[in-house]
Each structure stands twice: as structure tokens, then as C-alpha cells.
């Protein structure tokens, strides 16, 4: 290709943006950087947009929604774009998105969502619940104490509980550690069942589940992707599973106590309205949580295993 041709072919890239980005000064622009298309993250983004539209009025706000296509490296490019446009607020959905945005601006207000621990995600020593600066948001930390209580509530006679998790997932290990301590406080014997990958899962399970009364699975992505294997091993021997995430319970579990990402998104959206409309100082806003996790049960498996579920549980659709 000739040099002149190449130069010519680049020119549209410089001209086109100028033609497109006509904006109204009264309309607030919110940049949304989402790490990847994923049911949970999508739900949070949708909840966020709904709450902001309700709070601000649909005409007064414009969303610039960008998906990093699962690549953390793309987040920094998206963040750069938002900062150059000097948007009014940035919503960062998932940890790398927040990290990239936090490393790109100290002035534009930033709200995170679907982030488990802000202290860990932003390397803040002695994190006390308020990030400060231009950052706040919502956390998707699972209600682990509630999950441990759920095991006690559904299976009061359980003596030995297995904790299944993938050893490559730091997040799962954290959950297992916490739940294990809570169960041991109640005098229940626990047994960790760690597997390295999906190829190992079946043999590890078969070798470990026979003496268990209940199996607990945290929010573990590898387990979530291999629920059919878990189901094939556990259901025939009548081993009930309590899960930290609804999708696992839906495929192979008895019940779950998990947060709702849509509600989490709505909460984040309400925070955005507080910042943009009411002029609240984002530096003083503490990280918010989903305070009303819903107890859900899987009717098919409960019927099959003959487990009676209290009336305050909602059936998984």
C-alpha cells in the first residue's frame, strides 16, 4: 500500500468523531465501563440505568455504554475515552474496570459495582468502608453468615459439611475460609474439597462425598460451569447442596442465598442521582451493600430428595 493511500485511509478516523459527538450541555453524560457481557454484570448495568433514568428524568441523561469484551486491557482505553470527554460520572462495572478508571481520573466521580472488596481492589490499607476521593460504589459481597445459617436452618441434624471449591479461585477460598469458621463455631465438622480444574472435578468429588451430610459450594466460576458433573455425582447418593449463587442452586443445588445484581445496580444508580442531582459529596459516601438477599430453593431437587423448605423461601424460576 502506498504511503499516501495509507494516510488517506487514516483521515476519516480523525474527522468522523468530530461529526458525531454533538451534545447538549444540559444533559448529564454517564460513561459506563463494563468488563464483559455476563448475566450478573448486565443485570447490574440495567438496574443502574433504570434507577438513573427514574431519578434524573430520561431526557436529562445520556449513557455511553462500553463493553471491554472480557479484556482487562481494554478498560484503560475506555477510561481514557471517558476522561477525555470529561463525562459527568463514570460507572465501573467489575474490578478491572474500576481499577482502570481509578488510575485515570481523580476528579470525575466514579461509582463501582459488582466489586467484592474495595480495599482489595484499590489496594487501600486499613479500608474502613469509605474509599474517599472521587470513588464510591456498591459491593457484591455474598452474605456468607446468612449462608452458614441457611445450612443450619435447612439441615439441623447435619454433622459433616463438605466445602467444594476450585483452588485457582482466590475469591472462593476466601468464602470457604469464612463459612468454614462459621460452621465450626456451631460445632459442625467441615471437610474442604478442592479441585484444580474441571477435568479433576468428578474424581475428586466421588472420592470425598460419601460421608457428607451437606455440600456447600461458594460463588465459584469453575463449579458454576460444571454443575452437571456435580449433579451427576451428588443427586444419586441423595447429597443436598447449598450454594452461594443462584445459578449453581438452579442447576444442582437445593437452595441458595445470594445477592441480586439488578437491585445492586439500582442502588448504584440511586447513588449516581445523589451525586449528580443532589450534589452530594462522593468522597463521604460509604460503600453500599445489597441488604436484602433472597433465600431461594430449587423445587425439583427438593422434591426428589424429600427436603421440606420453610415458607419464606422463593422458588427459583
Amino acid at each position: 500500500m502506498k504511503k499516501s493511500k495509507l494516510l488517506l485511509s487514516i483521515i476519516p478516523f480523525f474527522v468522523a468523531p468530530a461529526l458525531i459527538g454533538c451534545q447538549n450541555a444540559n444533559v448529564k453524560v454517564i460513561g459506563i465501563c463494563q468488563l464483559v457481557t455476563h448475566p450478573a454484570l448486565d443485570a447490574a448495568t440495567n438496574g443502574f440505568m433504570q434507577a438513573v433514568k427514574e431519578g434524573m428524568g430520561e431526557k436529562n441523561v445520556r449513557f455511553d455504554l462500553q463493553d471491554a469484551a472480557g479484556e482487562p486491557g481494554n478498560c484503560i482505553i475506555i477510561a481514557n475515552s471517558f476522561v477525555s470527554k470529561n463525562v459527568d460520572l463514570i460507572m465501573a462495572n467489575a474490578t478491572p474496570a474500576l481499577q482502570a478508571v481509578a488510575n485515570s481520573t481523580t476528579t470525575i466521580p466514579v461509582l463501582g459495582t459488582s466489586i467484592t472488596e474495595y480495599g482489595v481492589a484499590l489496594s487501600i490499607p486499613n479500608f474502613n468502608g469509605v474509599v474517599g476521593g472521587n470513588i464510591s460504589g456498591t459491593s457484591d459481597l455474598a452474605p456468607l453468615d446468612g449462608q452458614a445459617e441457611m445450612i443450619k436452618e435447612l439441615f439441623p441434624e447435619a454433622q459433616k459439611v463438605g466445602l467444594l471449591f476450585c483452588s485457582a479461585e482466590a475469591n472462593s477460598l476466601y468464602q470457604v475460609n469464612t463459612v468454614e469458621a462459621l460452621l465450626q463455631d456451631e460445632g459442625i465438622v467441615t471437610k474442604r474439597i478442592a479441585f484444580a480444574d474441571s477435568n479433576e472435578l468428578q474424581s475428586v468429588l466421588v472420592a470425598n462425598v460419601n460421608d457428607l451430610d451437606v455440600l456447600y459450594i461458594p460463588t465459584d466460576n469453575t463449579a458454576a460451569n460444571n454443575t452437571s458433573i456435580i449433579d451427576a455425582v451428588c443427586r444419586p447418593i441423595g447429597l443436598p447442596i447449598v450454594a452461594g449463587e443462584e445459578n449453581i442452586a438452579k442447576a444442582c443445588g437445593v437452595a441458595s442465598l445470594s445477592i441480586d445484581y439488578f437491585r445492586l445496580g439500582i442502588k448504584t444508580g440511586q447513588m449516581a442521582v445523589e451525586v449528580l442531582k443532589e450534589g452530594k459529596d462522593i468522597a463521604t459516601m460509604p460503600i453500599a451493600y445489597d441488604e436484602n438477599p433472597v433465600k431461594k430453593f430449587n423445587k425439583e431437587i427438593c422434591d426428589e430428595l424429600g427436603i421440606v423448605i420453610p415458607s419464606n423461601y422463593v422458588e427459583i424460576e
Partner: protein
Amino acid sequence: MLNDMLTYLLSLRGAIALGTIWGIMALGVFITYRILDIPDLTVDGSFATGGAVCAMVIISGGNFWVGILLGIIAGFICGLITGLLHTLLDIPPILAGILTQLSLWSINLKIMENSSNQPISARTFPLIFSQLKIPDALWKISLIALILVFGFYVFFGTELGASIRATGNNPRMAKAQGINTKFNIVIALMISNGLVALSGALLAQYQGFADISMGRGAIVIGLCAVVIGMALVKKITPNFLVRMLSVIIGSVIYHLVFQTVVFLGLDTTYLKMLSAIVVALFLGVPYVNKKYLAPYFKHKKKKLVVEEVKND
């Protein structure tokens, strides 16, 4: 209108900084793919290794220069492993690279203490640069890139450098001249992966975190940059210094396009496909020109084009 244009130009500064960071990675790909004539797939792993090592050093309180240095050394080791797999065990280079890349996934996870993501926020740690201060990042990374390009220009003129180039050009002839080609392949792979890891270490600081999947698809970006860069200077000059510079410029162009796509709010899901198409086009168009179009349109020019392709 003018305002939007300025905003757009403002966003390009970040793209240039980011493109130059990735350009250092592309320089590593250039060394294996163009000079050594080996497609090395280790880079997808060693890129993240560089970032991971650097992040862990910084988190544990070390200076960022130490982090960068240790990251580069980790990259050397990655290249060494691929090189030994290829030369000692006679595993084809592509496969050797894939094997190293595969094992690096686990190793990187262990480096990052079993966590898939380690933050090094510029708010907490002193870093070489970050996207918070783009002008600062811009001159630092440009300086690093220029030093590297000039350094490698000198290096490839030395006896060792020249023999590496000879190994890539014609291994049999090189062997006949008494050059230890296996040694040269290992050395070149080490240098290449050292550069890739350096780029990973710099990116981790620029974006504020190291992530297990930050190197995913790095080889495609590297190839993109090399191919675009080569297309740029092909007709201008065969000068080696210019060619290395053009690789970095190729990476910058790639990121300018990328930034434009994001700026316009186009669907970013297509970005990967876009990069693949760009590489395929730049690689395929010269051949199509030569083979199918040139004979019909410019009969006389045909020979010229063939020669150029050979020279390249």
C-alpha cells in the same frame, strides 16, 4: 464541533502512550517473527508474567524500577524455557511457545498469590507513570522506547546480533559459517520475551493493575503492529533503525484506531475481529496485488513488485 475535535485529539494522547507501551511488546514480536523467523506464542504468557512480577514487587514495598527489572528477568526465563524446549527437545517452535504459554498461566497465578488480579493503584504506590498523568507518561515511555530502539540497533550490529540475524535469514548458511544457531535462537527468544515482559510491567503500572488475562491476544496486537509498521516503511527505506521505529509506530496506529472505535462508541465486541482482519489485510493485500492484479494492470511493474516482496 471544534470542541469535540479537541476532545478527540485529547483522547489520542492516551492512545499514543498506550500504543508505545504495547510497541515495546511489538518490538519483541518483531525480533522473533521478522528477525528470527519464528512465530513465538510465549508472549501471551510472558506479557502477564512481566506485569505480575512487577506488581508483586511493588505491592511488597519494592521500588518500581526493581519491579520492572525483575519483570524483565522473568521474561528472560520464559524465553529461555521456550528456547530450550525448541533446541534441546526439538519441539517445533510454535508448539514450544504454546507449551510455555500454557504453563505460564499457572505460574502467573502462583506469582500473584492465587489471585487473578493484583491492584497497584497510583493513588497508593509510587509508580513510573500512570494514566492519571498522561503527559508525564508520554515523555517517559517515548524516551524508554527510543533508548530501546537505538540500543537494539547497536546490538544487532555486533557480532552476536549479526549472527542472530544470519540465523533467522538462512539457518543452514549460518551453520556453515560456524554460527551456533541453537544458541542464537535461545538468546533471541530470551531478549524478545524480556521486552514483552518489560511491556507488561509498564502496562500494569499504567493501568494500575496486573491481571491474569492481560496478555490474552497480545501476539495478535504484536503481529498487527509489526505488519502495519512494515507496510509503512516498506517502500521508503530498508534501514533497520527505521524499521524498528516503525514497529512502535505501527502499534501506536493500531491503538489510535482502537481508541477511535471506543471514542465513537462502536460495539467493542468486534475489536478482536477487527484486529484479525487488519493483520489478514496487511499480510494478504501485497500478495493479491502481486499475484492477481499486477499482471493485468501494470505488466512492467510485475517484476519490481516480486523483487520487493523477496527483499522484505
